[in-house]
């Protein structure tokens, strides 16, 4: 018999998931992600085009995705808490027999599920390149799996940032913009800032703080425990801050 806590958390998770698919949000996010990455990879000529590059890899997909997700994941997460705060159902939720951690985790995993569902159909890209390769199957399987693990970790971080932004305000639009800015700072901001401190220890530290350097390292197909610890830590920190913010309503 599962404990009541688990049942309640799963109920909230199911409610959020069905919310995505009973409104347009879920479909729009998945379709826009697949269209954006598909058009840049297969249709628009240029350095991201697989045919132009002439190599049997889908590396360009993993270069494009962080930028596409930067706008789509905030769209998934923006209403999670802000809508509850605005409509006053937050108080109702807090009085339910469900712990604060479960509330945050249920909403977090629901948003992450939508992001994961949007990644899954891109195995078609992988399979296409696999069959287009000469000889057939001439694609670095291990390297591609590593890249997929990296992309999933990246999406998990983006969602945790989006969930925090949503808990900070009662306005969805503000939550969306804050999430985009936070994600940009975490993904690219620290990396750009490090250029100001070229050849110093500060440069190294700032680079290690940015998602970009860890994502690129894992995207090559090398799984380093330090990168995994970084991804896990950032997710844990943002979820803890979110939980702290939610709890502060009780004081």
């Amino acid at each position, binding site marked *: 018999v599962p404990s009541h806590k688990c049942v309640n958390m799963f109920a909230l998770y199911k409610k959020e998931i069905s919310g995505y698919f009973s409104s347009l949000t879920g479909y729009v996010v998945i379709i826009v992600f697949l269209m954006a990455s598909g058009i840049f990879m297969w249709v628009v000529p240029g*350095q991201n085009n697989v045919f*132009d*590059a*002439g*190599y049997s*890899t889908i*590396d360009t997909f993993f270069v494009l995705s962080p930028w596409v997700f930067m706008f789509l994941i905030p769209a998934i997460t923006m209403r999670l808490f802000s809508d509850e705060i605005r409509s006053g159902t937050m108080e109702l939720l807090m009085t339910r027999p469900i712990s604060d951690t479960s509330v945050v985790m249920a909403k977090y995993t629901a948003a992450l599920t939508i992001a994961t569902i949007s990644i899954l159909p891109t195995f078609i890209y992988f399979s296409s390149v696999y069959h287009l390769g000469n000889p057939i199957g001439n694609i*670095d*399987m*291990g*390297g591609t*799996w*590593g890249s997929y693990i990296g992309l999933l970790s990246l999406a998990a971080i983006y969602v945790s940032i989006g969930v925090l932004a949503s808990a900070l305000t009662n306005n969805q639009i503000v939550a969306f913009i804050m999430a985009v800015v936070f994600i940009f700072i975490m993904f690219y901001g620290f990396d750009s800032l490090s250029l100001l401190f070229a050849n110093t220890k500060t440069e190294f530290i700032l680079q290690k703080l940015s998602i970009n350097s860890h994502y690129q390292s894992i995207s*090559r*197909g*090398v*799984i*380093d*425990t*330090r990168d995994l*610890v*970084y991804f896990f*830590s950032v997710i*844990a*920190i943002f979820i*803890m801050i979110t*939980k*702290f913010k939610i*709890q*502060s309503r*009780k*004081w």
Partner: protein
Amino acid sequence: MQRKKIKQGNISQFAIGMAIIVLLNIGSNYLFTRIDLTSDKRFTLSEHTKTMLNEIDDVVYFKIYLDGLKMPQAKF
């Protein structure tokens, strides 16, 4: 009274969580492994390379010939 207790409990929980993450990150810099998933182990030094590098006690010069325009994957 009750509120103050909840507040203190939440703050200490948050602080303990943060401390664990900081310790985990410091520890991970000393104890780590890496798995190279690429089919040709592109990002791992082979045992042969390591022994060869150990035997060298002079400066090593590299000459790399690349045509940038024909390699979209490697622009320099």
